[in-house]
């Protein structure tokens, strides 16, 4: 099959683009924009082709350079990694389209070329980590990801960005090192780095070397836990995600963190196997951490004043949902987790992009200053509302479906306690998302106050001024390039809310390969 080589081609294309784009790009003009988007479009086409190929003719393993699985690097192109890569590329394209207008506003002009180079590398790292079936290769891509994401945070050149990026760097290095130690210990026991091979041998040896495997697992979990921001290890996330430029926040929060969670799932189920992790009781502790994260992430989010910081804390809570699904070690739990990976990706991107638009257009970050913004930026706030309602779990949005699947999985696993946690967490979500929506649409901002009219007259049907304003202000000062990606993401959320099986069918195919 000729699409076999495509995963590698995408990575090569992105590396090449990362080098060539800054060289060719003298100025941030039409030509370079077309170049950037063109590269991404080719990558998107290829990932679509991979996905279609996998769905038609099944999953396959791909050895790079035909070196064989034991010494060479292997890619595992199964249903979910193909879907995940397609999802990553699609969302990245939308975010990059958005960023073309927004980024000029946020960083120095001469750094724009460098920024896109970093985005290409970041994308390459994410795709690589999704495809790879080799533990050491995972580590390599992890480092690439850590460094590039650190760079796209600090590119803004402000004091808080440097602080956040430094913290991010230190903690992520700790995480990577933990992961490296862990995989070294695993290598010591099994003698393989290939995930499939490790899995085959580990079921024989884990009784012999329980301490080694425990330590390895502990180290790897902690390392990935830092990177995936599982609750008590999330401390780098709020600073990093809130101070970064908006497109970076969206990329980091909706994709990079998810990729690490996907790696975590791979390590748990593809490397160690269900038998080992249930035998060691890891899943129970993961469940507790997830439950604490779901509550405390929201609690911290309620106390925030800065809108992007609030969104960052909300990510911590949402990651708790995903980890909870993972920790159930059941088919339903894992499919709920994977579904939430995609649906949270969509929702969080929409939220960050719309928050970024508010910052771009009004220069306001404080939640309390957003009164009446719904009439000035109706489309942006509509996008925000859809995504926020999804976070609360209102039916008709993808957030409801992931909550539905997750609660269902929790009850099937016989742990109704977690249902209570999910409900409390949903209510807490409502506590911080609803006031923003309410203030944006139902409170009148300071500028609008004088338009207030007395609330009665006696005409046959009373007209409502504000709906008029809304329709006349449809133009919304925001550039179209920023509005279109947001609207696409919001409509995708709604489509997935009504037809979750579009994604769920693919996930169900993939889940069987994990368990």
């Amino acid at each position, binding site marked *: 099959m000729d699409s076999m080589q495509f995963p590698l081609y995408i990575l090569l294309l992105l590396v090449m683009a990362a080098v060539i784009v800054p060289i060719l790009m003298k100025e941030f003009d039409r030509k370079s924009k077309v170049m950037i988007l063109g590269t991404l479009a080719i990558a998107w086409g290829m990932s679509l082709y991979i996905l279609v190929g996998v769905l038609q003719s099944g999953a396959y393993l791909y050895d790079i350079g035909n070196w064989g699985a034991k010494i060479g690097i292997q890619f595992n192109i199964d249903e979910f990694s193909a879907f995940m890569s397609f999802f990553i590329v699609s969302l990245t394209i939308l975010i990059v389209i958005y960023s073309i207008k927004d980024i000029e506003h946020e960083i120095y002009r001469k750094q724009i070329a460098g920024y896109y180079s970093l985005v290409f590398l970041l994308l390459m790292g994410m795709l690589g980590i999704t495809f790879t079936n080799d533990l050491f290769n995972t580590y390599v891509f992890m480092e690439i990801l850590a460094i590039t994401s650190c760079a796209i945070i600090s590119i803004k050149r402000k004091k808080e960005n440097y602080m956040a990026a430094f913290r991010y760097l230190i903690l992520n290095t700790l995480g990577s090192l933990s992961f490296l130690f862990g995989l070294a210990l695993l290598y010591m026991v099994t003698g393989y780095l290939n995930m499939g091979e490790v899995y085959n041998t580990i079921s024989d040896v884990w009784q012999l070397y329980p301490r080694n495997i425990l330590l390895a697992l502990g180290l790897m979990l902690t390392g990935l836990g830092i990177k995936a921001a599982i609750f008590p290890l999330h401390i780098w996330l709020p600073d990093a995600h809130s101070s970064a430029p908006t497109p970076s926040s969206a990329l980091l929060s909706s994709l990079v963190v998810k990729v690490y969670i996907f790696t975590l799932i791979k390590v748990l189920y593809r490397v160690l196997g269900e038998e080992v992790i249930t035998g060691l009781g890891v899943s129970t*502790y993961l469940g507790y951490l997830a439950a604490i994260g779901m509550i405390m992430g929201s609690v*911290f989010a309620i106390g925030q004043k800065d809108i992007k910081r609030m969104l960052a804390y909300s990510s911590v809570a949402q990651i708790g949902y995903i980890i909870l699904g993972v920790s159930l070690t059941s088919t339903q739990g894992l499919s709920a987790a994977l579904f939430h990976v995609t649906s949270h990706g969509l929702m969080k991107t929409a939220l960050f992009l719309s928050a970024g638009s508010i910052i771009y257009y009004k220069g306001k970050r404080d939640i309390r200053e957003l009164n009446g913004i719904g009439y000035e930026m109706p489309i942006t706030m509509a996008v925000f509302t859809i995504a926020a309602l999804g976070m609360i779990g209102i039916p008709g949005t993808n957030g409801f479906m992931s909550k*539905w699947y997750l609660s*269902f999985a929790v009850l099937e696993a016989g742990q109704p306690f977690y*249902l209570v946690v999910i409900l409390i967490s949903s209510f807490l979500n409502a506590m911080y998302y609803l006031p923003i929506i*309410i203030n944006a649409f139902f409170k009148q901002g300071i500028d609008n106050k004088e338009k207030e009219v007395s609330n009665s007259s*006696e005409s046959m*049907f009373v007209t409502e001024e504000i*709906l008029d304003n809304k329709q006349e202000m449809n133009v919304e000062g925001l550039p179209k390039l920023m509005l279109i990606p947001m609207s696409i993401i919001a409509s995708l959320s709604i489509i997935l809310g009504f037809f979750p099986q579009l994604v769920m069918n693919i996930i169900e195919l993939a889940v069987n390969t994990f368990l």
Partner: protein
Amino acid sequence: MNIESSLLKAGLPSIVILFAVLEVLVTPFTSKVKYKNIRRHIVMFFIVLTTAYVAITYGELQNAPISYELSNLFGVGVTFKIDLFNYAFILLAGLLWLVVGFYNFEKINYLFYTITYISTLGTLMAGDLLSFFLFFEVMTFSSYALMVLNRGEEQLEAASAYIYMGIIGGLSILSAILMMYVYTGTFQWTNLAMEFNNMGVAKYFIAILFIAGFGIKSAMFPFHFWAPKTYEGAPFAVNALSSGMFMKVGAYGMLRVVSVLFSADKSIASVTEGIWRMSEQIGFVVIWLGILTMAVGVFMALQQGNMKRMLAYHSVSQMGYVIMGIGVAAYLGFQGPMGFIGAIYHMINHSLFKVLLFMVAGLVYMRTRETDMYKLGGLWKKMPITAILCLIAALGITGMPLFNGFASKSILHHAIIEAYEYGHPSFKYAELIFKLVSAGTVCSFIKFFSFIFLGEPKQNYDHIKGDHTRMVEAMSILAILIIAIGMRPDILMDKLFIPTALSMSFDPAFIEKYIVDMNFWNSKDLIGMVGVYFLGFGIFILGLKYHLFHLHLPRWLNAENVVYRPVTDFCEDFPKYCVQRYENKMISGDVFIYAILLTTVVGLLVISGFHA
């Protein structure tokens, strides 16, 4: 299926699609004020069309419910159904939205007005619990928008009780649905008593969550406090819709749950031992909740001076009657059709007279700009027709024979007596409270009518205008219905309620014996009503003499302070505390936390490894 019925079946979806297309085509052109009316007329036309369509399906419904299936939605598929049960409510919703739209004098947003209508229909027609929940949530949010839009910051503050309680209610219904789905494998409206019987404690959680969830929406004690709070600032038209329909949808859901989910299949209903036990236990609680709701509602209503607040508390109290009826239906199980029919009948009657009362209050407010009824007086000279309409509605709500309230109240009275005769002796007191509450209602509406319309005309209202033709026309439609139902209470019974009850799992012999051809005008009920009126009048005189209407309850008795405030306060203060105290520490102590966590993770794993 013959052509006629398939045509009927295709009707509703095509109306909805037609409307959506029209909206999309028309909305862009109606941003100018002069085209505004076109859109209004389209909305009204749509409501008329849907209502008319549902009305003509009556013949078809006699044979079988009309159902629509959307098999791909939500991955599991949802259904919508028109059956005899929701037929009356769908018609009622259409009527209310038309009348209120025709009447309305305040600014309300027509977009949300339509959405609330569609979502109410969706909730009523839902053939399974998932689609029910979907539209229920949409209804909560869109009705919230109606209540607060353009009403200022105070109303936002007040209505937050509504929206947050609504979300809590939604979440508890959702979790009940989920638990039901997991433990019984279905979320259809089917009889599940058998499955519940074989279940452990989980069934009580399911029941509690359902009843709390629907109770919040139907303003059941102790969740009733949102109603007076929110109604005070909301437009009159929205209050009318809220107490006429949104509360009813909550009660409708509760009735569906107890009479369908918790009841047994017809074939095993009378033969299997102990099949009704759960329903009985739930019913016992629900009856007392209903009694408490009606007592608290009427007691609070007596102390109010504000018309909106008073009517809101009366809505609470009347919903108490309905909930009590639902409770009786559940408590008596197979023998419970009296409670069932009483609950449905009272929901419909209450919609009619409470909407009319809100309309009267609205018209009075529009002319006088005053909501405090102690400051009004003598308005009957200025607005005589309004006074007559108010009198009709008041006679309806107090249960005067020949007005609609009498029929449903006497059925509910029969129901509670049956609960006492067939069941627990404590319902004797429930019956007493029932009478007392009815007397309180009489007193309250004597007060309402006399303070507003009777007495000496006040100086400052000398120059106000009188009745408003369009609004009075809208109100008269309801008044005529109130009298019509009052004159012939048996028509609705024979055509709708008895067939509905027969299609549920109730004892057909019981219905045949006690309900078919029921004599509404028997001397016992009439004499009872006279007693209630005398008692109400007595309370009114006493209240006036000793200024009892100005009493205020101690603050700690207020349900809001006990139920809602602590939760919201905690939810606001705890995050602030956490953020102030721990956020910076956590962020600056990053490496430290990492070290501790690594140690604990490894330690835990090692410990668990030793056990394994």
